[in-house]
């Protein structure tokens, strides 16, 4: 290993946030299929980007807290090779829904007020931010990922679609997305540390029309109902801002998402 190169690489990484906002901030799991056959192997890709069009992200063991499948019987670690895309491989169970869940460690990001304003506008997080953030020149955000995907095994039933994976911030469907009709409403509950999270902006993005998301805010019980105009692949996301536990950040942001195919059963 060539240490100067590493040092310079670190330096290069440490620098970089100039003025113009970098908007690749959504993170999700993209399986090779949402409808695997019983026992089929499914590759799981991590994606980062906007408009449900993401760059592949290699498996990063240094950031990984938990990458698991949660089935009817047991939780299993998702195997994978560090530094490789796809990030992991899962095996479909005999029936029902397999929940794939990924939780990352926090990473520090420095944001200019201008860049932060873009996030605020896009994610509807203004009510959650500390007062006076607009007056700050630079904001330090410790961001982490809490994402999941629903794989529904071909055959009878999709039991387990509402299984809670135990992510710090988690969207849980309260109705079966696999049986949703076009134009139907999907109720979800947003959980923060296992408890309902109210007053948080939730947005759903369709693979087929990513520029026109459907959005609503969770009620006091953490519930939100989103009318999804079509079936197919969907990404639903939310962001929770929490006070920072460390002095090196002004606040922490947890980015959650759930990917699934609506209808098609």
């Amino acid at each position, binding site marked *: 290993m060539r240490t100067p190169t590493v040092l310079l690489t670190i330096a290069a990484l440490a620098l970089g*946030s100039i003025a113009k906002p970098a908007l*690749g901030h959504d993170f999700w799991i993209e399986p090779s299929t949402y409808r695997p056959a019983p026992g089929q192997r499914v590759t799981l890709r991590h994606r980062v980007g906007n408009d449900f069009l993401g760059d592949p992200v290699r498996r990063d063991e240094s950031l990984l807290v938990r990458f698991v499948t949660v089935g009817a019987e047991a939780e299993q670690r998702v195997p994978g090779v560090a530094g490789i895309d796809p990030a992991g491989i899962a095996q479909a169970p005999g029936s029902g829904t397999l929940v794939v869940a990924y939780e990352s460690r926090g990473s520090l990001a420095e944001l200019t007020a201008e860049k932060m304003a873009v996030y605020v506008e896009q994610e509807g997080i203004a009510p959650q931010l500390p007062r006076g953030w607009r007056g700050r020149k630079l904001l330090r955000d410790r961001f982490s990922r809490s994402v999941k995907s629903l794989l529904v095994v071909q055959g009878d039933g999709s039991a387990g679609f509402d299984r809670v994976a135990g992510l710090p911030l988690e969207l849980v469907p309260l109705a079966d997305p696999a049986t949703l009709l076009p134009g139907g409403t999907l109720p979800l509950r947003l959980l923060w540390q296992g408890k309902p999270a109210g007053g948080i902006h939730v947005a759903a993005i369709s693979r087929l029309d990513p520029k026109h998301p459907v959005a609503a805010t969770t009620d006091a019980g953490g519930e939100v109902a989103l009318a999804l105009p079509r079936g197919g692949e969907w990404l639903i996301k939310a962001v929770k801002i929490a006070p920072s536990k460390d002095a090196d950040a002004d606040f922490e942001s947890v980015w959650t998402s759930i990917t699934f195919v609506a209808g098609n059963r």
Partner: protein
Amino acid sequence: MNPIAAVRRAWLVPVWLVLATLLAGAGAARAHELGAGRVEIYFLPDSAFRVDLQIDPDLTLQRLQVAADEPPTPGLPDAPLREALLARRDELLATARLTAGGAALPTTLTYLPAPPPGKGGREATVRLEGTLPAGAEALQLAWTLPASRYAVIVHREGDDADPGADLETHWVEPGELGPPLRRAAEVPDRLAVARQYLLLGFTHILPGGLDHVLFVLGIFLFSTRLKPVLLQVTAFTVAHSITLGLSIYGVVSLPSSIVEPLIALSIVYVAVENVLHPELTPWRVGVVFAFGLLHGLGFAGVLSELGLPRSEFLTALVAFNVGVEGGQLAVIALAFLAVGWWARSASWYRQRVVVPASLAIAAVGLWWTVQRVIS
């Protein structure tokens, strides 16, 4: 100075992406996850340049469609995908803004499809070619297509002649203007190189080289008198300077699987001898000299990994060695501060300091020896 990360070969970029990811995960400030995007920039004769943007064609088409507020058409076969992308030539060109001195550089675009399945990656190449205007020595790129940080690798004339040559790599946020990329490589400043390698040599001992630190402490604990310590330190320094130089110039070499366990064993030896034979003999100086030869090979291994700039090879080598000496002297100075010169003349010094400390050093050295042999 622009942030530059040098890598040996372009194909090492994924490795560096991983390393950078791991290192960044350790706490460095960064914006978001690193993606797999890559740009290769070639500076050619007569001020010509070529910019190869590596793209996922399917994802790229969808991004262009969504940007134009059209429904995306994922999963097109190769031929219609190429056709659809080339129909958006202008939009594709607009995603990569090339400038020299703030002025836009005109370029021609060629699309090179991804190789067939099984014949390589699934990345296609968007090739931009042009010429730098008279007087322009650098260009800058702002690429808006990726959603995550991407690598820009610079190739210059003559780079390919030396397969071991370093390639300049920059990490750039999508949409942001990258650093100026110079047609001719910057010649490193001699003083800056000396400073950098001096620091690297010093930090290789303190705090990076605990095995060397324990060896030097073993020498320090050997005697309460200055002369025996100085004699041993001089022998050690001369010896490791010899093998460091010879090894870097390729005259001698030993695999690290042999050198590293022997270095650990040398720590055991000096520490045990501190307890059993605390008298300076020519034998002791000779043994320390021999161990110095071994440590020199260890330093050379590290320095080879660090790499030496071709244009300032000797400067870097000498500076690194001086840095190592500085580190060793600092260890001895700190040891003096810790136990105090007065304590060395106390009657209990040998029983309460030298013997237990030497035994502890020997135990650690023994543990490392076993560990290094096994690994």
